[in-house]
């Protein structure tokens, strides 16, 4: 569409409106030319000849007359080529690493489309993170979306960097492993921290970064995960790579969405977030998966900071309903100096049951995990009781649970940022700790396993 429209009719927050537009498509890309350059935008509502456009880099400096607008006739597309691996882009998918633009092999609509449920393959193989609590109790499966629920000031960034550093898939496929890193509204320091830690671990050449800093425009933030996931889908399903997507911070993303929604004058749902927050999240999270007959996979680790550590806040709540489990970080453990401070009881990996055990990890994995969960759940009962009647008064078995709990937290959870444990090491450590408890307390393990492992590690 070569037609160019001169001038705007309304500017309101990040939105501009044009009257007298013909033939514009919903969600189509728009280029707005001003005296000092070009801005990108997207059509978000059409009514008669009026088109409402959201401007990605914000409307500051725009005037009603000084703009000429061109409709591209296509939705927002991302230039893709195998060479995007190792590059750094801004939130709208433009290179910002000074290495010039990507020579595109193809363009893809950043909105993506839903994977047909019949074309999905059920995720079955795991990704080893080298972190005992995750590998043993909340196993990450290829094609899964497993968020980290954290809070401001906790070590989620350190954990994400450690996962990137240590993540391995089985040897023969190792070469095809890649990371897509998507930063939404993070501070400059955090973005630098990640870049540095990728560099130090030598991972940088397999990382594709999409960075939207907290000072960047919010509209671009809404686009950032879409660009990152489009790149991930391309690498996974067309270049047959196993892609791990780290998305931080989903809370900033949701807030950007709320800001946009309120500037559009939409009816707010809970806590002012738009009513379609669930569908919007789903359009991102559901882009994880494995497709039948294609080589690669997209695995997501979205990170979100729970406002006020509240897990019932709409952002973690709706995320938890879409993702296949969650890794919850705990402030108390964090304050105890335990890293990673993973609170195992509310954490869960829904897909783990089919991706562990014989042939994947180890035959006793599921039972050990179950028993560790069950025993650790009893620890909190014993601690609750101890806080009321004092540790001295506890029964002998409750005392054993207390010491199991302390050692579990210090040794099993608190492995530190530099320890990379194999699955065997993690499971053996699990057995070692379970052996603190009397054998008859281990209800979830059968006699054969107990004979084989109890007290032997």
């Amino acid at each position, binding site marked *: 569409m070569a037609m160019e429209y001169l001038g705007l009719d309304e500017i309101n927050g990040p939105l501009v409106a044009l009257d007298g*537009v013909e*033939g*514009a*498509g*919903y*969600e189509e890309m728009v280029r707005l030319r001003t005296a000092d350059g070009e801005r990108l935008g997207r059509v978000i*509502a*059409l*009514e*008669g000849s009026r088109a409402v456009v959201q401007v990605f880099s914000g409307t500051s400096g725009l005037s009603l007359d000084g703009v000429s607008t061109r409709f591209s006739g*296509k*939705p927002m597309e991302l230039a893709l080529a195998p060479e995007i691996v190792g590059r750094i882009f801004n939130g709208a998918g433009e290179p910002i690493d000074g290495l010039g633009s990507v020579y595109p092999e193809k363009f893809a*609509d950043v*909105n*993506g*489309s*839903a*994977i*047909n*449920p*019949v*074309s*999905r*393959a*059920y995720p079955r193989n795991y990704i080893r993170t080298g972190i005992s609590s995750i590998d043993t109790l909340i196993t990450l499966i290829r094609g899964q979306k497993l968020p980290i629920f954290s809070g401001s000031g906790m070590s989620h960034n350190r954990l994400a960097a450690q996962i990137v550093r240590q993540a391995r898939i089985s040897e023969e496929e190792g070469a095809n492993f890649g990371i897509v890193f998507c930063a939404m509204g993070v501070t400059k320091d955090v973005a630098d921290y990640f870049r540095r830690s990728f560099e130090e671990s030598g991972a940088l050449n397999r990382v594709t970064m999409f960075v939207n800093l907290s000072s960047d425009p919010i509209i671009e933030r809404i686009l950032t995960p879409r660009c990152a996931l489009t790149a991930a889908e391309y690498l996974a399903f067309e270049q047959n790579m196993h892609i791990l997507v780290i998305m931080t911070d989903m809370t900033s993303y949701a807030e950007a969405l709320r800001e946009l929604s309120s500037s559009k004058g939409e*009816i707010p*749902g809970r806590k002012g977030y738009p*009513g*379609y927050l*669930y*569908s919007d999240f*789903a359009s991102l*999270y*559901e*882009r994880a*998966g494995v*497709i*039948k007959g*294609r080589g690669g996979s997209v695995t997501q680790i979205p990170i979100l900071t729970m406002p006020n550590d509240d897990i*019932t806040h*709409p952002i973690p*709540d709706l995320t*938890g*309903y*879409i993702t296949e*489990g*969650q890794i919850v970080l705990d402030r108390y453990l964090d304050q105890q100096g335990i890293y990673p401070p993973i609170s195992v*009881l*509310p954490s*869960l990996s829904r897909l783990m049951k089919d991706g562990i055990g014989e042939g994947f990890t180890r035959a006793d994995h599921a039972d050990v995990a179950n028993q560790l*969960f*069950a025993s650790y759940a009893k620890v909190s009962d014993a601690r*609750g*009781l101890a806080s*009321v*009647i004092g540790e001295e008064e*506890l*029964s002998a078995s*409750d005392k054993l649970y207390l010491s199991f709990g302390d050692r579990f937290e210090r040794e099993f959870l608190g492995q530190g940022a530099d320890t990379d444990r194999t699955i065997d090491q993690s499971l053996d450590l699990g057995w070692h700790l379970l052996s603190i408890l009397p054998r008859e307390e281990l*209800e979830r393990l059968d006699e054969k396993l107990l004979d084989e492992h109890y007290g032997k590690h």
Partner: protein
Amino acid sequence: MNDVIYSVNGPVVTVRGTRSFSMMEMVYVGDAGLIGEVISVTNEKTTIQVYEDTTGVRVGEPVKGSGAPLSATLGPGIMQNIFDGIERPLADIAAQSGAFIATGVRASSLPVDKKWDVTVLVKVGDYVHGGDFIASCPETSIITHRSMVPPNLSGSVVWTAENGQYTVTDPICRIRLDDGREETLYLAQKWPIRMPRPVRGRHSIDRPLITGQRVIDTLFPIAKGGAAAVPGGFGTGKTMTQHQLAKWCDADIIVYVGCGERGNEMTQVLDEFSELEDPKSGKPMTERTVLIANTSNMPVAAREASIYTGITLAEYYRDMGYDVAMMADSTSRWAEALREISGRLEEMPAEEGFPAYLPSRLAAFYERAGCVDTLAGGEGSISVIGAVSPQGSDFSEPVTQNTKRFVRCFLALDKSLAYARHYPAINWTISYSEYYEDLDPYYEKNIGPDFCRLRGRMLGLLSEENKLMEIVKLIGSDVLPDSQKVTLEIARVIRVGFLQQNAFHKNDTYVPLEKQMWMMDAIMHLYDRAAALCEAGVPVSAMSAAGLFDRLIKVKYEIPNDRVQMFGDVEKELDRVCDELLAKQKAAAPQKE
């Protein structure tokens, strides 16, 4: 004729100044022919919700009416299929557009080429009414499909086809209506999804939907023709519970609606069901199952429709005389779709942004469940089990509260049970079933006269434990008298040995009612013996040390479903241990005196 799009806002499209559409009519939107439905008509504008992604749709593109409301095509080929929210087979969509769903795909709901082995059931001269069977064919190896006269037609048969091989588009018979017009009938018919299919009448509920899940069958039974809700926060096992019910419940037909849920979960259902065998027939579970998958990232308007499509398919099979169970996972996503569309229409919101008509829509949906006399003169039923995903795990939110008003069985899933990996995490203090009265005669007649009494005792013990646990939390269990410790121990046996059920264990994933009865009997027998021992002065610690309680907890894994007589041996064994303890106590007691 010349109706064109005036505005686009997400899934909502309007057309200005036209009078050519009727309410609820299905329309094709834009050059791509996206499927939509008219949801409001005024002098000024017609509003349409579109069931596909509207990216790229332009103002000025045409909108064409179909002349009929959004309908489901009902005929052989539904079973074993997997559809999207508006009954398009996902496999056909995949064949046309690849692994990612494209827009504007037209796919016929039922396989048009497949020939069915048809037996014609009417002859020339018969007078047939709506709902009467005209032909039957084996749809799968366990389901016989009976094609019916559409409910609103009746007349005399003037021509029939021979028995033989026909597709869903081949004529089967022709009838002359009372007004003289002739109508050709096929194996398949269409029915508007938002309209309940008519029945002759409803009859009372008297049979349970047997699920093989102890906490449901025994404590909180669901009736055939009943409605149940399964609310729970994320990670509490809603979907797992729904899967277990879909796998094991004794309905003839399962309609499983994945409404706004995860894509990987639907794949799991597909994978697992094709590997599992139906316990009654030994055939793959998929042969009696139809899946409707509208995952959370598929268009929101189709999510709203998926529930209606599902219940319409269920009603169709009910009309053939089958017992149908429909699982809707999750009704909250459906309610959210209502809210989302309502927001786009700028309707005045009620509670938490949900539209004011949420309760009436929920009621209309759950009321389509029931035990009925079909038009054909048989009996059929639809049981609906709807998952609810309360925001923030808060059961006071509008969807949970309104659902509670329309269902009679409430299976509340509990986070703390799930954290302790107690599955199914159905909380026995806040769940309830109002079907006791209707179903007790069935249990007493078919399972055992003691069944309801045992259940009552068990519930009593659990609520007593609940009370005692409050004391234990404050001062520890050591200070309780032995009689109360026995209660706690037996309650633990009930919780771990009976209520907890392992979906991955071959002896435990499904448990027939008879075995449930035996288990209850054994537990209560142990309770009586333990209480008597306690009275005789045997300390609870001695009973625990003798393994009385733990023995019974492990029984659930040891006794296969087909060998319930082994419970007699277990009870004997427990009796023996009890006798020994008693003897030891008696031997020790005189010395003390």
